[in-house]
């Protein structure tokens, strides 16, 4: 850690690229990690074999598809949480309700203004990005970057404000949100006797495209480089002349946009009401924790894993059932934090006194 920090000071921003690549490789360089990963794969294989033998492979594949569908949404939410974590160093508890609010705005744009769904979602994404940038400027930046407790409290108060405002404006009756993809009964194609719905495929493609786009933005543009520099070392990026505040603001805007998109993707299934993102938020926290709090790729992996675990455990273990799969996310978080606090791909933190 020391040597890395010194190196960064000497060689400037170029080393950050190196350190991110090294983190991916080093995650599996530790023998215990490889052993644990192997054990998990063996367990999964045994469980999958049992599940196929028990209820047939058609159902199995369909559950995997369902799980991946949820998983991609969790991945998008977890991705936005990771962005905030990299920018401000905290977990944004208001992220779910910011996304919920954005989805409501898309809903109103479709209903009142009569926009096509795609356009409405795009407008809502832009709106919530702007709103998040404003929230960051007004409520987050006045706190010093080290005052984590203060910033967490601010995000909690925004959680309450957004939830209450949505409740006052739209009430608590669930509303049907129009899907962005052809979602009729006939809209599917068959591969080897398994129906893949266009809607499912659409969610996968959109999430992968957006996440890929964001990763590219962070990797190949000057702004992205500045963002990675700020998240890696605040002090030395300030010394390099990066304007910290606007870079962090950019992170918040990007995160809110991705979050709103995730909410619009899950809203056709979950229905639209002020409570809709609470559960998704918990699953996304679990995904972020599994992947490592500050790893963007880890968020994708973690989201898919949590989606699969939720659907398969809820489907195949009668004692758990779909309703009780929820606490499983909590158990996953607790176990991961106890065994490997930095997650699969997260940065290990070494503190000095």
């Amino acid at each position: 850690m020391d040597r890395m920090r010194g190196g960064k000071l000497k060689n400037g921003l170029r080393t950050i690229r190196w350190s991110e690549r090294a983190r991916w490789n080093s995650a599996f360089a530790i023998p215990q990690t490889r052993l644990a990963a192997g054990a998990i794969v063996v367990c999964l294989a045994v469980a999958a074999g049992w599940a196929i033998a028990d209820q047939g492979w058609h159902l199995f594949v369909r559950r995997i598809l369902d799980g991946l569908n949820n998983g991609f949404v969790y991945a998008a939410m977890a991705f936005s949480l990771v962005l905030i974590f990299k920018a401000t160093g905290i977990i944004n508890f208001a992220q779910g309700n910011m996304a919920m609010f954005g989805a409501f705005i898309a809903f109103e744009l479709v209903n009142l203004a009569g926009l096509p769904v795609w356009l409405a979602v795009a407008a809502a994404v832009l709106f919530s990005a702007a709103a998040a940038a404003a929230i960051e400027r007004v409520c987050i930046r006045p706190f010093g970057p080290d005052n984590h407790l203060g910033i967490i409290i601010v995000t909690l108060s925004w959680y309450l404000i957004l939830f209450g405002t949505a409740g006052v404006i739209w009430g608590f009756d669930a509303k049907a949100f129009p899907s962005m993809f052809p979602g009729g009964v006939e809209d599917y194609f068959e591969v080897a006797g398994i129906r893949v719905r266009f809607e499912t495929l659409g969610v996968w493609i959109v999430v992968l495209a957006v996440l890929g786009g964001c990763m590219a933005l962070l990797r190949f543009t000057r702004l992205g480089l500045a963002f990675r520099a700020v998240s890696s070392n605040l002090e030395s990026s300030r010394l390099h002349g990066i304007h910290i505040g606007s870079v962090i603001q950019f992170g918040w805007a990007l995160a809110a946009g991705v979050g709103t998109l995730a909410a619009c993707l899950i809203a056709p299934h979950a229905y639209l009401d002020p409570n809709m993102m609470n559960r998704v938020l918990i699953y996304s926290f679990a995904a972020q924790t599994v992947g490592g709090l500050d790893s963007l790729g880890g968020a994708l992996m973690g989201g898919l894993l949590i989606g699969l675990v939720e659907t398969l455990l809820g489907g195949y273990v009668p004692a758990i059932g779909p309703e009780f799969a929820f606490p499983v996310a909590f158990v996953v978080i607790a176990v991961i934090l106890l065994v490997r606090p930095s997650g699969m791909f997260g940065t290990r933190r070494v503190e000095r006194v």
Partner: protein
Amino acid sequence: MALLELKEGQPAYRFYRIALIATAALVLIVIPWLVPSNASVDLWSQAVAFSVAILGLNLIVGVSGQISLGHSAFVGLGAYTTVILVGDYGAPYLATLPISFALCFLAGLVVGLPATRLSGLYLAVITLSIATTFPVIILKFSDFTGGANGKILYELLTPPAWFPFETRTRFAPVAFRYYVILAIAALMFLIAYNLVNSRVGRALKAIRNNAISASTSGVPVARYRTLIFGVSAAFSGVAGSLLMIQNPLATETRFEIFMSLFLLVAVFAGGTVSIAAIPGAFLYVFLPHYAIQWAEHMPFLQGRPGAGSISYVLYGVVLLFFIFLLPGGVADGVSRLWKRVVAVRPALAGKFIGAGHAHNSQAHQSPLLGPDTVPSDVVRRLETNETST
């Protein structure tokens, strides 16, 4: 300057402290006669019961500097313990208090175990998922807990024959429940006061200010963090039992994540010193009560089905207000005003340079203001020097 100056250890100072405590006790005791209706006495009982939960949460937030979003689950655990024991096993109400204390203490230890290894952020996530899991568990074991219908007791705690005040209609049982809750709350405050001012409390404050340097000074950080989480959960459990004494209706919707958030708002609004749990509890109980009444009269809210959720917005705004303008909470503001009336000089003030200042600042320190030992830019400068050499 102050109207009155007192020195610690003087007889006048001792008299002043006793007078303060006696006044507070007197006000709380005569409250049932001052408020207009039995329903408002019930609200006051609720406020006193919640002050115990807020006190418990304050032991984590204020004293050990961590954050918990899961206290609604512990309040719920205590409440269900009381309701199930009284309803299904015929236990007397008061006998369930120690049981829910012990049960929640154990539950808190189990949840607090991760806290021993983790920083505040991870603890927040773990406790958040506990808060959201609790209602699911209640619904899952519905034959035991009553499920979505909740569990209601029709037999309330009734006053014994020697309890006199049958002056108004149905006043005596309401007043009796208020006094029972008040007495138990007073006991819990006494326990918390002694805990915070003991060896354990000092160790926890050291951990809050800097965990690593506390551990190098020989404070077992992990053990104390788990312990305080357990104690805090136990306080919340007792608060849940007290709530059931006031109104024995346990449903899973009463113990949702929002309760945790509101408790946290109350902690920060009251201030992070333990006695501040009282103003926080008033805010907790009376803000939504009056907000809903107020919302009924507002033209822009009328006819909206979700108008009641205006209180969520108000809670959020109150929280923002206190974080930005008065990070020490109500208690800090009041004590700063009060210092202009009565100033207390610590007994050691003349002997050690700076001792008086240290005494004053430690009493009302908010974790939001950060550790008050070394300015952060000094630390940063030290760190960068070390790394570059």
